[in-house]
């Protein structure tokens, strides 16, 4: 069965330090992977996605993520954290085309990122 895990409920990092938010997945075939961010009292916003190609994907607001097939991971990273990056981050995965039900995303439970000044 498809699944996504975000092993950390909360991540704390000092402003200016690099940050990593972890995501691991279990799907059949080659997954399509997504990261979204949710600021307080707002809907989710798309950050970046991996479908195919270069394992390092760059997205919005200076974020990037690295797809690692052998470790089935898709960790979100940023070289230098900002206080304004404090938010809830969600990883999501879906099956590739022609592999089961690819209309739905499977979501992680979210990781709360706190960037301290």
């Amino acid at each position: 069965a498809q699944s996504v895990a975000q092993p950390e409920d909360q991540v704390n990092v000092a402003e200016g330090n690099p940050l990593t938010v972890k995501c691991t997945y279990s799907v059949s075939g080659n997954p399509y992977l997504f990261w979204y961010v949710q600021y307080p009292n707002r809907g989710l916003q798309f950050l970046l996605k991996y479908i195919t190609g270069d394992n390092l994907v760059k997205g919005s607001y200076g974020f990037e993520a690295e797809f690692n097939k052998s470790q089935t991971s898709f960790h979100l990273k940023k070289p230098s954290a900002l206080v304004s990056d404090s938010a809830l981050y969600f990883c999501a995965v879906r099956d590739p085309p022609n592999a089961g039900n690819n209309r739905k995303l499977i979501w992680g439970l979210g990781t709360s990122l706190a960037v301290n000044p």
Partner: protein
Amino acid sequence: DAGITQSPRHKVTETGTPVTLRCHQTENHRYMYWYRQDPGHGLRLIHYSYGVKDTDKGEVSDGYSVSRSKTEDFLLTLESATSSQTSVYFCASKQDPNTEAFFGQGTRLTVV
């Protein structure tokens, strides 16, 4: 941001009453989704639609129904609201499975 709006943004209702939440998108997206967000559960899919009058159940569909009579509108109905349906509800839309989803700002529903 994509044009996707939810109404109402906040609602308090009594147990046993029907409630309808509306999602409206102006992007001509084919796919639309209703999620609920609860602490400790992340996002859970209630129902989704892959075209006008084409809908399917998600993982937590009991007690909910949906309708999609036009591309731009996706309605979620709680047939008889219960306290367990107190939650924040999010609508999302996307053009196809490969693209990113755009989310509405959410509806905070309280059932008393």
